[in-house]
């Protein structure tokens, strides 16, 4: 294990020689955090060649991601990957829909208070507008991928 770590540190020296402060220790910590927080979650990343890979994260080793595609594991080297994305799932859609529903309710309540004897058309229009506006805000807020930095870079 010690030999392995020594080899890894030698590898770090090469990375650290690149422009920018790129620390393997920082990258290791971020990889550990990724493993701790997102094992079992569906992640997405771009491998060299601009190919997007998506699958359930099973494990993170010093050099590789182990990803499950439809139940079968696949190994991808992460040395050249700086960012991992967590795409929003069905719950993200539900949250966006929930925001839309509150927007619609606010529109309906607003019109029955503001307009005496509001007819069905008024109620329908304001509810729909509230729903659409709330839904739009909800999707922009709750339906966005999370970008996780796993690089060793220490600058913004």
């Amino acid at each position, binding site marked *: 294990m010690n030999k392995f770590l020594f080899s890894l540190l030698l590898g770090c020296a090469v990375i650290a020689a690149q422009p920018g402060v790129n620390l393997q*220790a920082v990258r290791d910590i971020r990889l550990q955090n990724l493993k701790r927080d997102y094992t079992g979650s569906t992640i997405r990343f771009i491998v060299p060649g601009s190919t997007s890979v998506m699958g359930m994260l099973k494990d993170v080793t010093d050099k590789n991601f182990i990803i499950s595609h439809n139940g079968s594991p696949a190994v991808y080297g992460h040395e050249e990957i700086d960012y991992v994305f967590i795409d*929003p799932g069905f*719950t993200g859609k539900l949250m966006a829909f929930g925001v839309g529903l*509150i927007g619609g309710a606010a529109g309906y*309540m607003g019109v*029955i208070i503001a307009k005496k004897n509001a007819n069905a058309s008024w109620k329908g229009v304001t509810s729909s507008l509230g729903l659409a506006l709330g839904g739009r805000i909800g999707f922009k807020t709750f339906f966005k991928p*999370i970008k996780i930095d796993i690089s060793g870079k220490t600058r913004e």
Partner: protein
Amino acid sequence: MTIAKYITLMLFSAFLFAQDGAILPGQKSAIQSLSTAAGFSSADLNTYLVQNYGQTLGSLSRTQGASVIKEFQTGSASKPVAAKQEADLAIASILEVGMKKRFHFTDGSVRDGEIVSIENEVVAIKTGSGTFNIPANQFLSETAEIKNKKGELFKGVVLGETAEEYIIRTSYGDAVVQKKGIQSMKRYHGGILDRQSEERRKFYQSEAQLLSVFMDPTAFPLTGNTFYLSGLSIGYGLTDRFMITTKFGSDFNGDLNLHPRMRFYHRKSAEKEVAASWGLGIHRKYPSKSVIGKYSHAINITDSAGVITPLNEMTKDKVANSDDALTVDDVVSTENVSGLYAEAFLVFSSRRVNPTGRGKIGWTLGAKISNAFVGRDDIINQSKLTPGGDAISWSESSKYTVPFRTWLSLEYDLRKDLKFVGSAWVDNGYKTMAFGDTFDDYTDNFSLDSPGGEVSMIDFDFGILYAVNESFRIGLHFQQPYIDFYWEFFEF
């Protein structure tokens, strides 16, 4: 208002603003005695205070004074080796190509930039004002002492800072410290504590993390093991996702109540945090008078001529003949004076880093309903005519079918300790009240349930919230309750 009320208000204000005033004379003499006993000369003490607090003894705050006393009492205050001269300022030990941050120099200047090359001990730094070649020995070291919420202490050179974390090179390796987990931090440039410039110019988030905007909750509950106390309620964060509060004014009047809040959805990245929560409120003996008071504008008084007037228009100050005036007591049923009350809300919140890099901005959208109108006919005395011979009934208008409130609130960090907050709402039970009436209502039973005020079912409010110190917050705004204040004690 009476003179007694003004005096109470002034005493209360003085109490609030006394939370972190200037150091007390007793604290000063205690510090001087303790420092002398610890072998400090006056110059040593002064140096120690400037290095650690950025202030001289007379300029310390009360909280800082208490902290210094504690340090001397626990023996953690160590005597400074010698007063630092400019020539002795610590020089940066680590400079690497690609470092991009705010650099401090021995001549006192500060530059934002990126190191593009280092040759023969001369560092080329690219800034927005041009590229400068500066000798490496002119760069001040940037070190930090960071204590996280677990009690771990990190000391070392600041290698970098992102929106979410600090990277510190300690004696035993590099540490990545999450800003979210930081309890306290001291930052040094050239070995001297920097308290002013950087913190004020740039901050990640303000000290106050809002649980609610005015009276409306956000989707972010109290963090675990945190105690909360405000003018209306007390609460506790049982976990990071679940908290409970109770309105103590009602509790003391026999109306035991609990208000749990659960965050059921949470996503957080370096720049953004979103959450959704639900909450409940359950009162075992909620006074019928409170329901009638809140919805007095939905109760119709029909006189013998068939003229309908809402109850809130029948108060003493609004009717010509005071004999015709009605109070809540005239309307409430003598049999059903209280009942089980429940409310539920759903709320969504988002916070993100302000694109300017200073603090955060956020919004909250929520909706709340209650069972206040279930059996509402039973809480008014329909059978009995009022002294004026009028009949009492609830309005049949569709806007009074269900008690509801929806709100959209905003927060914006102005400074690390100051936040702008605003809110707009649609609420079929809202009435706007003058400050004096609000004060009377609050001092009556430590709750806000007055029947008075003008109906204003679509309305907005805005104000500021100031973090006096780590645990105490005070807010001012333009609608009831006008003043907000609360304490949060972490790991109570």
